[in-house]
C-alpha cells in the first residue's frame, strides 16, 4: 500500500508540482461541487461577460451532486459523476485559475492539453463510494443556483477526502499508463 499524501486547499503550483499520476492523496479544506447544469450556467455568464458566482483561483471543482442531507449528518452520499460531460467547459475554467478537478473517467484531448498548459491537476474519486466519501465532508452549503437542487453549486469543507492523481501537471495520465500493465 502506497503512502497517502496530505494536501490542503486552495492549491498553488508549489503544492501540486510534486504530485504524480498514481499518487494517493487526502484533501483537506474547501472544495466546490458543480456538475452539468451549474457548468452550463457558468458559461451563460461567461458569454455575457459577467462574473461567476465563485472565484475559481486556486480552487478545486468536484463533479458531484449529493443526495439530500439526512438529519444529524453533515452531507448526503456524494461521489464523483463522469467527467467527460464537462469537457466542453473545462479548458476555459482552467484558464480562469481553476487548479484542480475531482471526477471520474476519461477526458478529451483539449482538456488534457489544458491541464498541462495551466499546470493544474485531475484527481479521481472512486465512483460509487459515495457513502464513504461523505464521511470526509464535514460541512456542506449551497453557494449558488439553489433552484437546481442536487445540481446546485455546493461548498464542502472536507477533511482527508480520498482521491487519486490521474493527470498530473506534467500531463502524465494514469488511465493511459496503468491499464496496459494488466492487458493480456
Amino acid at each position, binding site marked *: *500500500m*502506497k503512502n497517502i499524501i496530505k494536501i490542503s486547499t486552495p492549491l498553488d503550483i508549489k503544492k501540486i508540482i510534486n504530485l504524480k499520476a*498514481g499518487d*494517493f492523496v487526502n484533501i483537506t479544506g474547501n472544495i466546490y461541487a458543480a456538475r452539468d*447544469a451549474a457548468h452550463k450556467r457558468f458559461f451563460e455568464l461567461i458569454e455575457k461577460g459577467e462574473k461567476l458566482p465563485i472565484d475559481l483561483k486556486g480552487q478545486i471543482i468536484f463533479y*458531484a*451532486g*449529493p*443526495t*439530500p*442531507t*439526512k438529519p444529524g*449528518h453533515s452531507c*448526503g*452520499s*456524494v*461521489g464523483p*459523476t*463522469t467527467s*467527460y460531460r464537462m469537457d466542453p467547459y473545462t479548458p476555459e475554467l482552467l484558464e480562469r485559475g481553476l487548479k484542480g478537478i475531482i471526477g*471520474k*473517467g*476519461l477526458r478529451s484531448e483539449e482538456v488534457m492539453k489544458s491541464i498541462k498548459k495551466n499546470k493544474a491537476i485531475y484527481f*479521481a474519486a*472512486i*465512483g*460509487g*463510494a*459515495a*457513502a*464513504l*466519501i*461523505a*464521511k470526509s465532508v464535514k460541512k456542506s452549503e449551497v453557494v449558488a443556483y439553489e433552484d*437546481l*437542487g*442536487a*445540481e446546485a453549486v455546493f461548498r464542502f469543507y472536507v477533511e482527508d477526502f*480520498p482521491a*487519486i492523481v490521474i493527470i498530473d501537471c506534467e500531463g502524465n495520465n*494514469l*488511465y493511459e499508463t*496503468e*491499464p*496496459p*500493465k*494488466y*492487458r*493480456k
Partner: protein
Amino acid sequence: MREIKANQLKNKVKELFLKANFYINPDLMQRLKKALEEENSPIGKHVLRMIIENNKIASKEEMPICQDTGLSVVFVEVGQEVHLVDGDFAEAINQGVKEAYQEGYLRKSVVDDPVFERKNTKTNTPAIIYTDIVPGDKIKLLVMPKGFGSENMSTIAMLKPADGAEGIINFVVETVKKAGPNPCPPTIIGVGIGGTIDKAMVIAKKAIVRKINQPNKNQKYADLEKEILTKINNLGIGPAGLGGNITSLAVHIDYLPTHIAGLPVAVNVCCHAARHAEGII
C-alpha cells in the same frame, strides 16, 4: 380474483426502492470480496477495499450506496387473477417512488423535458415501468435504481446473422473497452440477444440483476458468457479504470427468438453496485 389495493402496491414499491439504495445484495458483496482476492493490481485492490467499505457504511447508516440514486426502473409481473382496487396502477408505482425518494433522502435525478427545459421533476418520477401479465394472483416486483454513469456507456447493434458468436463477443468487448473507467468498473454486463431492437435491451437490463454469475441455463450461452468475461478482464481496465485484472464481475446473457434476417445485440452496462430489490404482493 384476488383484490389488491393500490396502496399496497405503492407501499411495496417504496419499501423496495429504499432497500435497493441502502443495501447491497449479499451475493454481490461476496463477489466483490472474491474480486479483492483475485485482483493483482495494488491500486485495484485499494479501490475494491474502498467499495466494500462503502457498502458496509451505506447499509449500517442507511445512506445511499451511490449519490446517483438512479432513474427508477420497475419490472412488474401482474398475475392475471389480480384485480387492483382503490387506485390507478401507474400512479401507485410513481407515488411509491416519490415517497421513497423524498422520505429516504434519495437524490431526485429526473428532468421532465430531455432536450430543452431539462427541469427537475423533484420527485424522481415518472418511473420506467415494464409490465408482464402472468398466470396467478400475485404481483411480483423487481425494482432497479439505474445510475446513468453506466447507462450512458450502454450500446446496441443490429448484427448480421453471419456475424454469429464471434461478432457478439467483439461487440460486447469493444463496448466495455470504449467505456473504460466511465461506468464505475468492476461492472456487471447485461447482454440481450435476439427479439427486436427494443426488446433486446429490455432483457439485457433484466439480465444484469440475475443472481451474480449464475450461468445461463443453455450451456452454449453459458460458455459465451464465460468467454466474454475472460476477454473483458484481459483488457486490463481494472477497478475504477485504474488498471487490473478485474474489469467486470459478471456477464449475464439472456436471449429470445428473433427474425430470420437479424441478430440484435444489446449491451446494458451496470456499475459495481447493480442495485435492485425484489418483492411479492
